Each structure stands twice: as C-alpha cells, then as structure tokens.
C-alpha cells in the first residue's frame, strides 16, 4: 500500500474478484425460480407434400402457436430462445427431430403470445417415411442468462399426424 500504483492495483483486483463472486451468486439465484410455462400448438393445415422419386419426403404446414412463458424470466434473464421441433420414429432412426420454427424473446412482456405461421424451416425426412406419420410437436426453450448457467427444458405435445399423400 506504499504507492499510488500499488493501491490502485489492489482496489481494482479486489473489485473484480468480488464482481465475479456477485455474478456467481446472481446465477445461483436462478435456482429459486420455479416456472410454470404453458403452450399449445394447433396445425391449421398441411400446405404441400413433396415426394421425390429418389429423394427425401418433405411436408409444409401452417400452425397456430399459443404460449405463456412469462414465468421463465428472472432478473438474470437476457433472452429466451424457443423452437418447435417435430419428433417421430422411423425404421432407420428411433428418434427424428426436425426443427420447424424458432424465435428469440427479449422481454417478459413478449413471452405471452399467439402466432400463426408456416414452418420456418423445412420439414424434411431422411427417406420416405412421412406419409401418414404420427408425430409429436415439442416446444423447447433455452433461458439464456445475463451471467452464469443456462437452463433448458421442453414441453411435448403429441397426437399429430401427417395425412396420406393423396388427401393433400
């Protein structure tokens, strides 16, 4: 503590160490949040079906997505990344997950929403398994923090089915 430089270094180093501790505590405080999110997806209709002779099946659809994810936000939340994935089983793969739509929610007020949208990303299969296929639509969310640990979870909605080709 004998010189200006020495004291300045001491203050800054101690302040930074304490800051790191504060961020760790802030992140830990997220564990005391018990969220209760809810969501519902309805398929308005299937827009088209592409069946290529030596290619992969592709389906296009429109959905209504309703969700209330406000309880996921804490004081330490920067944004919420959500995406909807279609999940189904095929002879080759026990689980296929195809991401159909995603969004970034920056504020708690925007976390309660309703949207009608076509699938943002192509619903493509590895093969020709989509006709008459039963699938789940799962809403995944990643709670991205301002500092510290990221929490992720999902909500599975089942009971969806792609119609047989001829009826599209």
């Amino acid at each position, binding site marked *: 503590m004998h010189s200006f430089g020495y004291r300045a270094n001491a203050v800054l180093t*101690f302040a930074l160490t304490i800051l790191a501790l*504060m961020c760790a505590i802030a992140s830990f*405080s997220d564990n005391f949040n018990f969220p209760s999110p809810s969501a519902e997806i309805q398929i308005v209709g299937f827009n088209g079906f592409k069946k290529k002779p030596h290619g992969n099946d592709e389906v296009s659809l429109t959905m209504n997505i309703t969700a209330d994810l406000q309880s996921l936000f804490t004081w330490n939340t920067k944004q919420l990344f959500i995406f909807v994935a279609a999940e189904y089983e095929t002879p080759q793969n026990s689980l296929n997950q195809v991401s159909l739509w995603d969004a970034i929610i920056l504020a708690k007020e925007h976390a309660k929403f309703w949207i009608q949208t076509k699938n943002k990303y192509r619903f493509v299969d590895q093969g020709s398994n989509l006709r008459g296929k039963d699938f789940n639509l799962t809403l995944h969310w990643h709670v991205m923090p*301002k500092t510290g640990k990221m929490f992720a979870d999902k909500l599975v909605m089942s009971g969806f089915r792609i119609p047989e080709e001829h009826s599209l």
Partner: protein
Amino acid sequence: MDWQGQKQAELWMQILLLVFSVGALATGYIIGSFRMMMLIYAGGVFFTTLLTVPNWPFFNRHPLKWLDPSEAEKHPKPQKAVVSKDKKKSSKK
C-alpha cells in the same frame, strides 16, 4: 502515506467494496434489476477508488520520524569485514 495510513487505506478499501457489493446484490435482487446492481457496484468501486487510492492528508496523521542528519552522523553504519580475515576463515573450514 505513513504506515498507519496504509493500513487504514487497505482496511477501508476492503470494507467499502464488500459493503457496496452486498448492497448492490440485495438491491438488484429485490427490485429485479440486474442493471441496477451493476450501476450501484460501479458507483461503489469509483467511490472507493477516490477515497483510498490518492494520498489524502488524513492518511498522514502519524508521519514517520526520520533522524536529523546530524544525529545520523553520530551513529555510523557498520563497516564491512576486512578481506584478509575472510580468506583465513575460509581456509580453516
């Protein structure tokens, strides 16, 4: 700064930073604003720096008593040992 001042400066620095950090965390958590926590803490660090880093007069209340030059001459520094004596000592070992 004198010795007492340095000790005081270090103590104040530690106390102030800890108090500000706890206060900032508590305030931020209660009102739910991360930004507010950072602002309070930044203000605290700035204030602590201002108070403890510069050489303020109140850190110099116990100045060091340096000897007068005349007093120092009366107590000369001890001489180094003569070289030949060292050689003799080393050969004995």
